């Protein structure tokens, strides 16, 4: 999260057109301290405290972008994206295409999803947006990518949805280069090489996959972990290249399974090269219940054990 703030601060120093709209982003320093230091440095005109009016916030960001600014609009938690759905679905992704390719709306929508330190607002609707042409949808899993992809998102001339997995805010820390650098939107990243099973992990599921890989290595099963990074456009080539090597596939994300991004990952293999698969694929995600807010929640969400068991099943189910 510090990495995201750092990317925003660097961009705001470089470009006076970049400004920020959100709730509690000023004196409080942001939900989960997500804008720490920005208000002190840039003041209330560039770090804008907005009323609880998510539709107006996104609409105003789109309009400001259409007229030359480069706003970042924060929806405190992904569960509030539906409050702005008309702007997010009927406007943002359509503006460039439907104006015959003339309108430019460089807007970043930043939000938080999944389980986190406070347990509130855990539901992850990222897949809804990956469905829609015109959006770029990213969900970085590491501090370096968080900074690099936020920088890329701010510099993009179209709308980008930036999802932060809340459990990652207290995840492993890593040194992040101080200067501005871009992690391109689109390409997935091999987080771990392995010969046996490809695990395509999204955002907060990456640490689970890494943990599972450690455990499975002791049994002689080597996971190859693909950190998806971008939900749209999907890096079908990287997925296919990895599965061509391992011939087995598991997908894991915190969002629900049905109609989820995992299904799209699987499709990118079976549409192109179904013959490479030597075992059934397994998709892991939230249980098919509204994600509970109370102590039931961990039972609804994916964990490392699910991945370990899935990998064992995939290996056992491998055709001769």
């Amino acid at each position: 999260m510090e990495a995201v703030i750092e990317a925003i601060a660097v961009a705001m120093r470089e470009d006076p057109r970049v400004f920020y709209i959100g709730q509690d982003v000023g004196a409080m320093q942001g939900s989960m301290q997500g804008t720490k230091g920005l208000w002190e440095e840039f003041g209330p005109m560039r770090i804008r405290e907005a009323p609880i009016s998510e539709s107006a916030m996104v609409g105003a960001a789109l309009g400001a972008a259409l007229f030359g600014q480069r706003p970042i609009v924060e929806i405190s938690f992904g569960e509030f994206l539906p409050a702005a759905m008309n702007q997010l679905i009927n406007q943002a992704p359509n503006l460039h295409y439907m104006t015959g390719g003339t309108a430019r709306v460089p807007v970043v929508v930043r939000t938080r999803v999944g389980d986190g330190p406070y347990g509130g607002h855990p539901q992850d609707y990222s897949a809804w947006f990956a469905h829609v042409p015109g959006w770029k949808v990213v969900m970085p899993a590491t501090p370096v990518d968080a900074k690099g992809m936020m920088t890329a998102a701010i510099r993009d001339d179209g709308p980008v949805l930036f999802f932060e997995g809340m459990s990652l805010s207290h995840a492993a820390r890593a040194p992040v280069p101080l200067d501005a650098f871009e992690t391109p939107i689109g390409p997935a990243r091999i987080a771990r090489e392995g010969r046996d099973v490809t695990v395509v992990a999204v955002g907060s599921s990456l640490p689970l996959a890494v943990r599972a890989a450690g455990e499975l290595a002791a049994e002689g099963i080597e996971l190859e972990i693909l950190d998806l990074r971008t939900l749209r456009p999907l890096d079908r080539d990287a997925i296919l290249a990895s599965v061509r090597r391992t011939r087995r596939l598991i997908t894991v994300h915190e969002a629900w399974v049905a109609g989820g991004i995992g299904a799209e990952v699987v499709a990118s293999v079976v549409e192109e090269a179904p013959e490479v698969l030597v075992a059934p694929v397994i998709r892991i995600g939230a249980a098919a219940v509204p994600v509970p807010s109370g102590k039931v929640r961990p039972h609804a969400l994916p964990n490392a054990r699910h991945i370990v068991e899935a990998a064992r099943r995939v290996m056992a189910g491998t055709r001769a």
Partner: protein
Amino acid sequence: MLAPVEAKGLSEGLRLYGWMALSRELDEVLCAANPRWFPSAGEEAAMVGAFCDLRPDDAIAAHYRGPLVIYMMRGAEMARLVAQVLGKVGGYNKGRSVPFTGPVDLKIVPWVAGDLGTSLGVATGAALAFQQEGSDRICVCTFGDGTANRGDFHENLNLAASWRLPIVYVCQHNGWAISQPAKDYLPAPVANRAAGYAIPGLEVDGNDVDAVRRTMMGAIARAREGNGPSLIEARTWRAKGHWAADPQDYRAIHPDTPMADPLVRYGDRLIQRGEASATDLDRLRDAARAAVASTLEAVRVLPDTGEAELGLDEVHP
């Protein structure tokens, strides 16, 4: 081709009359050519009066009913707009959006999907951009009395009032939302709501272009001077159906009271003031009719939009 009202030497009054007359003529022809077009006859004074006193660098977001002449007032080409309505090549939108959109480079908030209410948000954002850049540009946004009941109305007026954004919101109150009469969905005038945001709220006779302009002038000055938004409710009357081929059976069930034709009213006034003769007015209407007819003729023979405009590579900039 130049619109007839762009002819040199016309007085301000005649130019305004000319735009309203052009709108009327264009509307008639488009309704005949496209049964799904949304007629704007009778609402010209509200439409033209809301936008005629802006600078070219200001932004506009026009209500979907009757915006084409507003776009032409800013320099859009009639033929390209007509192409949008007839589904022909040459439209600004390449056949990809609802037809009542206008070119973005003329500082027009485009219509894309046609969901009502969202344009208030984007228009508010235009005003936000102007405040961010520290200029005295403003935005004018018109919308229907039905659209006034979208949550976006409240969210955006409240946000614009909180941030003192340079914008004028104008409700083009024509008394209808498709088949629903306004009395069934508006318990109080829309302008009354301004009190809740502590901004000026003004009702005006929307069929009197001078009255609309006078009211707009105050609101425009207020926005330009950095004193924040205003809400104006221009009372007009939907003379025709919701769409051109609308049988309007509901009108017998909910009878309404016609308002005097704004074109006739303004023409009479110009004559009374000695600014124009009946012949001047006739000449302008004839010129408008001729311009529309020749544009339609030229556009009709163009090919329909099709696969060539699909633009798979124009989804992202």
